[in-house]
């Protein structure tokens, strides 16, 4: 076997998580290869939106991870050569009624007490943000440190820099089998690779990689739709989610019509650098069927008009779907697998992959190097936390 196909570390998956891992591992001077079955950012990372947010995170460990990611993203914006449409403008959460407004007040208090930059917004504040909001929207909240990026440009940018640090990149290579003796042997549709350590960063496809080593990885694809609105008049500058998005994400009860609940629909509006805007969102467990469901798109459009009725004549030019890698406790798995020393998992970032990619990449680099004082605590992200709990949807 030629040295070209051997590396200290092999990373499987060229989505945003795999790209961030490749960047930090290569930067540490470790010989590494990234193996991707299609192209860089060809799965979930180009079928999503681009939030690096705390606004939708549970206070505590969840928000700490995002906060660390935001700090790393500020550094990367200086370090990386290719721009990735970084816009640190903060983001909003809007409420539909007074009951949500009350919850928003509590949310701001908790997050502020944790040292995060949250502010409550009233009706007048929202009018300043956008003239398109419905008159009866009572208010919301903002997180000042949230930012937007273009996920696939971010991936390209990370890979470009990682290559300068020595990363070897193999795209169009689907992993077909992995075996372990002293080293791992990774067979692909485009050559065989060997590595001392392997990182499974295959997102919703991570369970298939796990199976090759008889490992059950409890990640399930959760499908999400997004619409692209054409550039017309500027709607607003900052990213918006509705408070109900949190409820959907964490599976909490909402007061909405049946269809909205069934399709897991909650408003997300993201102005993009191209001056288009993205409208979301939906969350459904329908396996790996990526077809666009017009019924879900209609529910999303109806939800958008609830918050932005004056946008009724804005034009939608495209819709797409992506699979979010769901785990039962809404935290990713970023961990070595005890039963297979040298095998790491970095997957399961449902809806938070863009937010948490950088902190994940940094942490995996630290785990590989055996750093004891890691960027975030590792216990909540351990793989063996699922060992005693049955996985249910």
């Amino acid at each position: 076997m030629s040295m070209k196909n051997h590396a200290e570390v092999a990373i499987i998956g060229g989505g945003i998580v795999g790209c961030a891992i490749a960047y930090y591992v290569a930067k540490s001077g470790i010989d590494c290869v990234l193996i991707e079955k299609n192209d860089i950012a060809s799965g979930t990372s180009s079928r999503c939106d681009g939030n690096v947010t705390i606004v939708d995170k549970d206070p505590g460990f969840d928000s700490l991870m995002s906060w660390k990611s935001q700090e790393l993203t500020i550094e990367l914006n200086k370090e990386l050569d290719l721009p990735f449409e970084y816009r640190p403008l903060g983001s909003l959460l809007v409420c539909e009624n007074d009951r949500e407004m009350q919850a928003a007040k509590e949310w701001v208090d908790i997050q502020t007490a944790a040292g995060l930059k949250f502010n409550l917004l009233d009706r007048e504040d929202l009018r300043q943000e956008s003239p398109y909001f419905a008159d009866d929207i009572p208010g919301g909240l903002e997180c000042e440190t949230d930012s937007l990026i273009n996920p696939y440009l971010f991936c390209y940018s990370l890979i470009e820099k990682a290559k300068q640090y020595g990363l070897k990149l193999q795209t169009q290579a689907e992993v077909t089998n992995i075996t372990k003796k002293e080293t791992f042997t990774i067979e692909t549709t485009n050559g065989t690779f060997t590595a001392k350590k392997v990182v499974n960063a295959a997102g919703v496809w991570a369970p298939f990689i796990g199976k090759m080593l008889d490992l059950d990885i409890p990640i399930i694809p959760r499908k999400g739709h997004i619409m692209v609105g054409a550039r017309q008049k500027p709607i607003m500058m900052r990213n918006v989610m509705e408070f109900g998005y949190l409820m959907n994400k964490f599976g909490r009860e909402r007061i909405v019509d049946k269809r909205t609940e069934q399709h897991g629909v909650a408003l997300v509006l993201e102005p993009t650098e191209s001056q288009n805007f993205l409208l979301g969102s939906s969350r459904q467990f329908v396996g790996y069927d990526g077809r666009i469901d017009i019924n879900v798109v209609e529910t999303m459009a109806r939800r958008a008009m609830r918050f932005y009725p004056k946008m009724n004549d804005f034009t939608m030019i495209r819709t797409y779907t992506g699979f979010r890698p769901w785990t039962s406790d809404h935290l990713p798995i970023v961990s070595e697998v005890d039963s297979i020393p040298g095998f790491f998992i970095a997957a399961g970032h449902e809806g938070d992959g863009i937010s948490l990619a950088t902190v994940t990449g940094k942490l995996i680099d630290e785990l590989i190097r055996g750093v004891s004082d890691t960027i975030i605590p590792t216990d909540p992200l351990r793989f063996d936390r699922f060992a005693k709990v049955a996985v249910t949807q």
Partner: protein
Amino acid sequence: MDQTIICRCEEVSLHDIQHTAATYNCSAREVKLRTRAGMGYCGGRTCRPAVDAVLEAATGEKAGHDIPMKVQPPVRPVSLSVLGGEVK
């Protein structure tokens, strides 16, 4: 010739596409995402044959249904109210 506009909606020139393909030595899909060729208002209904032909020349990839330019619904732009129903 270099400055010929291939994608009108996103104002992408022949030079932009060729330069991107040469600089990053990447797939047709990646050229499209980096330049936004074919990602504008027309959804490729105007520019698709031209973008496909230029990408094939630049990257050697034959245009399939999925790559480089997958057709994404809706078939043509529709207003939010057509999808979401007028407020009654």
